Structures are given as C-alpha cells and as structure tokens.
C-alpha cells in the first residue's frame, strides 16, 4: 500500500483538516464543542498525552495533549457515567484518539489518495522528550471548550515514503 501522495497537501490544508476532524469527533463522541485558542498548553508539564505514528504512503506523528480534567469530562460524556478509575480515563482517551486518527487518515486519503495506518495509541501521564523530538518540529492546534478545558493536537510534517 505504498502509493505516493498524488496531491501534495500544504500545511494550511492539513491544519484545516485536523481542526475540522477534531471539532467534529469531539462533538460526535462527547458532545463537547471546541473552539481554537492561542494558549499553548504544551508548555505545561501536567497534561496527559496520547500519541501514535502514522505510516504508509507517508509518515508522521500525531499527539494529543490534554489535562486530566478535560479527559475526564470527555470520558464521562462518552460513557454516560462517572469514571471508576484511571484505567477508564486511559481507555476512553485512547478510543477517542483512535477514532480521531482514523478519521484524519480517511480525510487525508480523500484529498490526496494516499493511505496510511496508525499504530495502537499509547497513553502517558506525561510527555517524554523522545515524543517531542526537537529535530522534527511539530505543528500544534490548540482548542478550548466552554468550561475552559483545553485540548492540543500536535502533528508532524507528512513525509512521503
């Protein structure tokens, strides 16, 4: 499945795509409405992280940053009941991210005819330096909800394979 990117996607197109998918999926799964914010929470050391790598016709990293409060609200809205523990927080965060990644990959395919798979998401309570590799800068999209909860999606450049 190593097709080349038929259409090069510019950074604005990818940014718009990820923005649109993130707001749609967050609303669809958890009835949370997000809007963009200039506040970059990746400077904090408190957020939890879910991340994966996409590989196929292109390679990149996709990372989700959010404080526990936001993920808890997300998980409780998805499940319809209070969380029973940290395991639940992790499971719901990963499933949310799973749906997000799948839809991002699908929309990239629809625009470029280039397909990719992603690896099983990994959930961490803090972001290790190895994930934020300074030699490969990431673009961040920052979102805020109506309760001041924040979500950040970071992604790397789509590098054709």
């Amino acid at each position, binding site marked *: 499945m190593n097709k080349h990117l038929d259409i090069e996607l510019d950074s604005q197109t990818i940014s718009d795509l990820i923005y649109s998918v993130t707001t749609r999926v967050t609303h*669809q799964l958890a009835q949370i409405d997000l809007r963009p914010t200039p506040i970059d929470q990746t400077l904090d050391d408190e957020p939890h992280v879910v991340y994966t790598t996409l590989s196929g016709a292109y390679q990149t990293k996709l990372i989700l940053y959010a404080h526990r409060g936001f993920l808890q609200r997300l998980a409780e809205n998805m499940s319809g009941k209070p969380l029973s523990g940290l395991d639940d927080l992790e499971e719901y965060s990963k499933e949310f991210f*799973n749906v997000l990644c799948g839809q991002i990959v699908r929309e990239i395919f629809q625009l470029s005819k280039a397909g990719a*798979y992603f690896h099983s998401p990994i959930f961490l309570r803090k972001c290790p330096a190895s994930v934020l590799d300074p030699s490969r800068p990431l673009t961040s999209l920052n979102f805020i909800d109506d309760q001041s909860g924040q979500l950040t999606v970071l992604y790397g450049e789509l590098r054709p394979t």
Partner: protein
Amino acid sequence: MSFKVMIVDDSRVVHAEMKKLLADTEFEVVATCRSGENALSTYEECHPDVVTMDIVMPGMDGFAAARTIMEKHPEARVLIVSSLAYDDTIDEAVKIGAKGFVFKPINQEQLMGALMGALNSDK
C-alpha cells in the same frame, strides 16, 4: 433465536459499547478479545455466528487475525469494525473475505444492518 457474536478489539470501551448496543437484540455477545492472537483461540472455543474485528491492535492486526480465522474456518463470518475506513482498507476487507465494514463511531443501525447482512451472506 439468538446469534452469537464475538467482539475483537483492544479497547474495552468498544466491548462495553457494543454490548450496550446489542442488548435486547437477537445478537448475544458470547466473547470479547483484546488481541488478534486471543481471537484465534477464542474462536475455536466459542464458534460464534459473527466476529467483529478491529483493525488496529497491538501485535497481530485485525486483517491478519481475520485472514487466519477464515483460512481455518471458511464458514466464519467476520465484520471489520474500524475508524480506519477508506478505499484501501475497505478493499482489503473485501479481499480477505470479510462480510462487511462498520465505521467507528459505531451506531446501532449500522451495526445491526451489518450483522444481519453478515448472517444472510451465505444465502
């Protein structure tokens, strides 16, 4: 009459969601597996009427697990259930002999339609 369903997905959120969607229907969840490897042995034990199979899982992915089950059990009915839903993955599902594809996020109507379609695919 109830039909047996085996759910294969590394997320127990999906297990819980599908059990909820299938409660009070003719489909009974008889087994849940969190890996492709586990699915192979569990299939032998419970011989479900339909298997729902995620694609992205640690270790053996859903396509490999589905292929292995169907090679050993040509009568097996496997539905692919995934957020990774675009031409290439749908084509792969068809190629391996899956009976349908359910897109995540799952809704009951889509799931029930796909399960009934899988059961009727032998006719």
